[in-house]
């Protein structure tokens, strides 16, 4: 649904108004950081990963912090919702388009510049994996 007095979808405005999973995370297992203040968008995604009974690595908790426009904040909030409770392999498959679609679309001009949340999520997972490798190295 599109409110004609607003360039963004209702869903985008809902997430902007009440962002989900907002905040810092102490002792995160992985942190993803994308963007640059010069360009006007910076996103940070923090994840906590735990192993399920089946031995899968699950995103147990996820938080975000964002400096940026409405689209940047809403996509960050949405990606945390999409990734929460997923395995890290499933979360790696979340794309920028998935995020935009879940928000009922973004203005075309925002598709490229402010739709970085999936990248931040992927960066957090990669960070988690490399930390895990490092700690395994230490153990060995």
């Amino acid at each position: 649904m599109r409110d004609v007095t607003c360039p963004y979808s209702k869903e985008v405005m809902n997430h902007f108004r009440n962002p989900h999973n907002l905040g810092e995370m102490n002792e995160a297992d992985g942190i993803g950081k994308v963007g640059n203040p010069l360009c006007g968008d910076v996103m940070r995604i923090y994840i906590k990963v735990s192993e399920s009974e089946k031995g899968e690595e699950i995103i147990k908790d996820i938080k975000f912090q964002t400096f940026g426009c409405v689209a940047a904040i809403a996509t960050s909030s949405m990606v945390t919702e999409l990734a929460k409770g997923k395995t890290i392999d499933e979360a790696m498959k979340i794309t920028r388009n998935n995020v935009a679609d879940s928000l009922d679309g973004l203005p075309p001009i925002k598709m490229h510049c402010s739709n970085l949340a999936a990248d931040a999520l992927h960066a957090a997972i990669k960070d988690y994996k490399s930390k895990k490798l490092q700690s395994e190295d230490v153990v060995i």
Partner: protein
Amino acid sequence: MRKVYMDYAATTPVDDRVLEAMKPFFSKKYGNASSMHSYGQDAKNALDNSRHILADSINAKNNEIVFTGSGSEADNLAIKGVAFANRFKGKHIITSSIEHHAVLEPCEWLEKQGFDLTILPVDKSGLVDPSAVETAIRKDTILVSIMHANNEIGTIEPIDEIGRICKENDVYFHTDAVQTFGKISIDIEKMNVDLLSTSAHKLYGPKGVGCLYVRDDVKIEPLIHGGKHEFGLRSSTENIAGIVGFGKAVELRKGEMPTEMRNLTKLRTILIKEVIKIEDAHLNGHSELRLPNNANFWFKFIEGESLMMDLSLNGVSASTGSACSSKSLKASHVLLAIGLKPEEAHGSLRLSLGKYNTAEDVEYVLNVLPKSVEKLRKISPFKRDWNSENNFEKNIRT
């Protein structure tokens, strides 16, 4: 929810009296001002009357008023028109880094066509140094274009002095007065200007009408050729209703301007005084030499489009110089020119007041704005500095 419009620098509502004056010219007095019959003459008289009101308001002659389709068109006509007409005299044009795009873009386009362009810097408050204009003038300089007051930060330029320098050096001087006309009194003789652009929709008139004052001895070519309307400088059947509205709006300004500007200055001063009390809030532009209705700030660690939209959700309409809200996705060239870093320019907010704003409106904004800033700072990863890497590292499990 209260609705507060504080974006009068973007556009203003049409005054009811202006609308009433315009109405007959749509379906009753619809003649073409070029026609000899009574319908045409009604239109012609209305056109002449508006022309006279505008001329009188800036101390010009009737034949020096050229109606255009917008302020941007007036700027384009002034710059390209003078450049083409004087290209055998010289090819050098001087302007400033904080001009409106309607001035900068035509100048840069002319540069591509083989003209030379000097873009003068401004100081931190947005002022052009008149002595820098004097130094930049060369033998082949044909035009200087410096705005009367800046549309974003409201800084009022030393136009009288720049005009005098241009006159002494025999160089045409154009000023974009779109933001000042109707707010500050304009006397083209005192200002020594040869060309001056204005627009109706900034002073409670309709959109789609502008005006270029062209001193009667200026050599200028038209942009639009055709039926020789507007002394051959702007062919097109005249937008009579719009021009009548422009005339009426200017006529009303004459009586209302002094009191209104005193009121707006008062409200604006309270606004600035209170907003800069917010932590890490800064005023952009000059503290005194600024438009009576303009306030422009930047807030550290937040982004302007988010701020503008959060204010909008709370009923306040304002604007920002952030890249995210611009079609070009670039931060405001004006804010960068006064020395703001891009990340600082992204956090800018312009509040521009108008005659329908009240003390209660200001109070409401002062209540809503700090909350919006606080909310967005909670979302932002930056808390103490832009390079919060130390802060960042501490979150990683060790």
